[in-house]
């Protein structure tokens, strides 16, 4: 069965591209616009991986990671955070919150698939 991935980003452009790329690689993809939206998706759907942006309205990515790790069905699901900002600090924020790994934007479709395969083969 295809693995299901949740992509969380307030930018539709990014969601579209992530989703398109991953679907092409044989994953099933569900989308959410921000952390709040993501949590409500996770309430209803079991996913195998979460890819989330950091900067989002309503609930940012770091908070989302914390909430997911805080308990519930997805507490041990791998989470990748998307980051552009010079990496280290945001990566570290994400890590501290419990993210599994990160992808640095901009990324090529191949890179995305590669990183996803790394944590969710």
């Amino acid at each position, binding site marked *: 069965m295809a693995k299901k991935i949740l992509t969380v980003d307030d*930018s*539709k452009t990014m969601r579209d591209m992530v989703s398109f790329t991953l679907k092409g690689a*044989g994953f099933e993809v569900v989308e959410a616009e921000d952390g709040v939206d993501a949590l409500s998706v996770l309430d209803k759907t079991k996913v195998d991986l979460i890819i989330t942006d950091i900067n989002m309205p309503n609930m940012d990515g770091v*908070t989302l990671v914390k909430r997911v790790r805080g308990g519930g069905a997805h507490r041990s699901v*791998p989470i990748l955070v998307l980051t*552009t900002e010079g990496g*280290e600090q945001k990566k570290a*924020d994400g890590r501290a919150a*419990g993210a599994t*790994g990160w992808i640095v934007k901009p990324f090529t479709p191949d890179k995305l698939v590669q990183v996803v395969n790394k944590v969710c083969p």
Partner: protein
Amino acid sequence: MSGGKITGDEFAQFRKTFFDECDELLTNLDERLSCLQEETADSEALNSIFRAVHSIKAGAGAFNYARLVAFSHKYEALLDLLREGRIEQSERVITALVNAGDILAVLVEAAQMEQDLADDYGADVLDELEQIMEEDGGVEGASAGDQDQAEVEVSNGDDGPSRFRISFKPHAELFRHANEPLLLVRELKTLGDLTITCDLSGLPPLRSLEPEDAYLSWTFELATGKSRDDIAEVFEFVEDDCDLEITRLDTAPVSGDQEKGSPNEAEAPVEASDAAASSAQKTSAVAEQASPKPTAKVVPAPQNTKGPASGTTGVTSIRVDLDRVDRLVNVVGELVITQSMLAQEAAERNEAGGLQAAQGHEEMATLIRELQECVMAIRMQPVKSVFARMPRLVREVSAKVGKQVRLLTTGEQTEVDKTVIEELADPLTHMIRNAIDHGLEDGETRKERGKAPVGTIKLAAKHAGGNILIQVTDDGAGIDRRKLFDKAVEKGIVAADAKLGDDEIDDLIFAPGFSTAKAVTDVSGRGVGMDVVRRNINNLGGRISVQSVLGKGTRFTLTIPLTLAVLDGMMVAVGREKYILPLTSIVESFQPERGQVRALAGGGEVVSIRGEFIRLIYLHRLFNVPGAITEPWNGLVVLLETANGGKIGVVVDELIGQQQVVIKSLQENFDPVPGVSGATILGNGKVALILDIEQLRNMPGRSDGSRPNGKHHIPETSSHAPDAPPNDGQPAAMAQTG
């Protein structure tokens, strides 16, 4: 690993999504920047600006718009320093942010249009951003390039296979980040020949085993053609959660293997993460300036009930191509027409149809009307998006002319058709510029006149019937009618001996080629006058009028239909023709006594009603309609109010009834016709013309109304023999509607 390839079509689609999104982001950016300027910004404003720039940058990166990426990167960097409180939010910074916002918009547009901008475009703003960062933030070289460089993949071109020993000792909490050693092992295996030794010595007795902790550690021996960095990359995500040592075993003939990175790589990242944690603390403290609780958590963005972001809270929305909506609007329009055709047919065979059919038709009509309203509502947007641009305009203009101005806006949530919104920006901009430049007095003068030194401009929107009313009110000097009149005479717009009422004098503001500014200023008076504003508004089917009290101020009122797709009309008959008059313009209709109608010496006729003389316009003359009632006292006069509050009387045979009509453009489907703003298809499938009151008013008849046969005919109509029977095969614009 397929999925890497994106076809041209898909790419175009992504690209479109990106620019659509940019549009929204830039609008949001603009709104938030104005909030900053007005100091009405909440802590969320800066975050929101940051996110907008950030999203643009991320998307631009995906599409390889290098210039956009570079610029937004600097912009973002400054915003980040601001958010962290490392730079103070000074006037200078705000100005730089606003300017950068402008540049960003241009860069986005250039990227969209695939235009090349001058190499130094925006360089000054970029410099300013850097300077601020260096001077205020103490950031060397504005930290711009570092990130991009950080991403350059380092590959030292090892060729032959080398052997590495990798000692991997996970910390207990490895699993808490949902990392999985098994996956790492699998990935290592893809790099080359792998020998695995597992160390079980850390495993505690079962009863003290924490099921979620990591106890095992491994030693791998790997023969691979890859570099140390490639191996380290496998452990990229776990390096904080483990002790990792990668040692090269053989000293094989490899050039330049400079023992990169200390074997104990675990140390450094830990520090980094501490630093990050403390800086996260700082970030949230800044973001939460209002409420001084220094919490270490990054707090979710505070819910903002009045800010622009409120659109995204709790409201689910989808993005739909405008074309699709328009198609929907059109189809529903056709549906309305078809339904009324059916209803008419049914009514004609009333006896046979029976009560039930009639009821069915009525219900259907109601439902379709509702459907139409729903569809129209899709296109409706709050005027806020236009209003939000105004504070900035006021700031700029007032600074330029050296006047202090306060802008009050109300009714931003009033909704109106998207097309109308787009068309509103220019007229409003112009009116507000005018109000500041010409309307308001300077501070000194205001003091002398006993007014507050700060001038006030009110921008208000509200619904009134099927219209939106937008008022721009200033508390300035008001219109000096004598000056205005003299000026108009000087410009040859009116004769020196013309006798004009106050309203007519005020109306001169809208005359083409009129500008009261003594000098053409940089602010207003760029050759675009209020006549253009009026034309814009008229094009929207709206009206603009002005009221003014000398010394107290001036108010411009725009009355614009909520939608451009339907019109509440009154159908009138002239001979065998049917015309639609906009209901909003109709004041009353009456049958005058013969004595009320008088001929003017210079030609034309007026009707007197309640002591007012109102010019008569004979539709049958204008449009050369045969068989119409020619004497007003045998037919009806419909009294219409024009945009400036003036009145005209239109002579028709009879009123047929009120009707909502779907507007079809004549210009698109045929040719522009004087006096006609559009056409509609009636229930019986025939076409009726919708009359344009402003144009009617300006058509001959003022001075030679009695001989209207001339240049203003619809050409085709005039080629008919006067009593030719209506021919259904004629094109719509001939108005042969039977």
